[in-house]
């Protein structure tokens, strides 16, 4: 793969926050032949930070679940800056279970600073909602493919990130907490965000090295916003190839591989 724009982690941070960086709303029409949005978690409401629905890519029916960044302030108000509430994760799980029932693969797009931290989110069990998704996705009897489009922040990202293959866009980041949060917790100084980004190991290359992601999807020179069509084409190619690969595997084998993929992450020694 041609890495034509090697940026430092803080530069990547700037790039993925660029207001022109394409969001999943831009990509969906370019990647899928059709898309029918389905709403609601059937318990509480319809979280606009996560959208989901039926789609097809070159004739393969899939369920799409995606965290939604806004392209302007109004869109961001609607989607809560892509910070989901529990009902968003519960909608995602409902649609994933539906996909399992009808043997459709699930495609998740991750793009969030993290799960929303607020009173209502706590009242409705933010922790439980994320935990449930993680556990249920681990045994979901259909292929799951996840792609980090820009920002993969903490448990809010992992709730859509338990999958058979994780791909990350070349300039995207994936982290246990936002660099600002990291700096403010460990150094009591959120202002040291860029320094945090530099040492946290959050880049696409880091994800491959640490066994968190399996593939990097390349972006055009200057980043995805310089050529959204080209980026969408790269995502489509990855998806088609991976769907075919994972759909051909016996489901028990697939589930075993999924469990093992996460099972082996950890760096310890036994004295």
């Amino acid at each position: 793969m041609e890495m034509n724009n090697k940026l430092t982690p803080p530069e990547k941070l700037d790039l993925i926050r660029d207001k022109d960086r394409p969001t999943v709303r831009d990509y969906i029409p370019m990647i899928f032949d059709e898309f029918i949005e389905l709403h609601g978690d059937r318990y509480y409401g319809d979280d606009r930070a996560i959208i989901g629905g039926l789609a097809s890519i070159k004739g393969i029916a899939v369920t799409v679940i995606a965290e939604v960044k806004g392209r302007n302030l109004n869109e961001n108000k609607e989607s809560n800056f892509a910070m989901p509430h529990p009902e968003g994760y519960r909608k995602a799980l409902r649609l994933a279970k539906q996909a399992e029932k009808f043997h459709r693969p699930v495609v998740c797009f991750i793009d969030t600073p993290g799960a929303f931290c607020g009173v209502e989110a706590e009242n409705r069990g933010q922790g439980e909602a994320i935990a449930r998704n993680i556990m249920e996705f681990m045994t979901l009897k259909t292929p799951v493919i996840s792609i980090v489009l820009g920002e993969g922040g903490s448990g809010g990202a992992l709730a859509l990130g338990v999958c058979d293959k994780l791909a990350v866009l070349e300039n995207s980041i994936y982290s246990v907490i936002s660099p600002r949060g990291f700096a403010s917790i460990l150094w009591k100084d959120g202002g040291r965000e860029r320094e945090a980004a530099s040492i946290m190991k959050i880049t696409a290359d880091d994800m491959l090295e640490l066994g968190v992601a399996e593939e990097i999807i390349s972006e055009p020179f200057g980043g995805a916003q310089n050529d959204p069509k080209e980026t969408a084409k790269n995502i489509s190619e990855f998806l088609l190839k991976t769907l075919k690969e994972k759909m051909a595997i016996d489901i028990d084998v697939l589930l075993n591989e999924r469990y093992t993929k996460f099972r082996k992450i950890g760096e310890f020694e036994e004295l």
Partner: protein
Amino acid sequence: MLEDLLDVVKLRFNVNTAAENDKDDEKDEKAENKVEIPKDLAFKCPRCLNMIMTDELVKNLKVCPECGYHSRISSEERLNLTVDKGSFIEFDKDMVSRNPIGFPGYDQKQDELRKKTGLRDAVITGECKIRGIRCVIGIMDSRYMMASMGSVVGEKITRAFEYGAEHKLPVIMFTASGGARMQEGIVSLMQMAKTSGAVGKLAEAGQLYIAVMTDPTTGGVTASFASLGDIIIAEPKVVIGFAGRRVIEGTIKQRLPDDFQTAEFMLEHGFVDLIAERKTMRRTLAHILKLNGYKPAEEV
């Protein structure tokens, strides 16, 4: 009439269990001998802010006699209070973490904590008996980096669930945590997937998982295995939540009520099955295990 009858039934039920418990407890040594005596003369309760004399606190198993807050205790104290004497066989005692993102000062910090606490990381796991019933137990220890979950905590907890699944044993997890261990970066986030996946393995094996939430159960641990118990018990007045209270207060620019993110709050919102006091925890666990069909192991 019907109410009277119910009362009689209730009374009998209570009398029977109480008698049985008393009998069992006689065999136990005095519970207060199982907690360590702090060096300080008094304890300032973080909930009601009262000063409690140390001997009074110890007699009360480190529960605030004024407000009922169940203060933090070490994993060793918890073990003594919970399992049959001499029944604990520890797993993975010598596992230590590497420094996956090379975070400056992480190794030194751990060295210091190991010396200070005698622990190698923030959880102990093993097999034990509770009133004769075999089970797997894990106890997180907030003295060690606020029991944050990194590679070692994640691996030991995962192995404990896998052991339960393989040997058809119930698993009891005493949770306490500030969340994911930031110093291990993304590797710590992945421990949430590992541990939650392992809870699934135990469920597939048809075994019971009881989570006991202790002070504080927050962040990535709340958002993974702690919230996935078949039965979730909490100690009174402890903090349970996902986001930090101060983070939320900072966003909404107002003070949250005192009971926000407490065990009682979680019970009211439907995320905890029951609240049990420390002095009854052992018998509560034994009772639940029994009602789930687990029997005391044959005396050998």
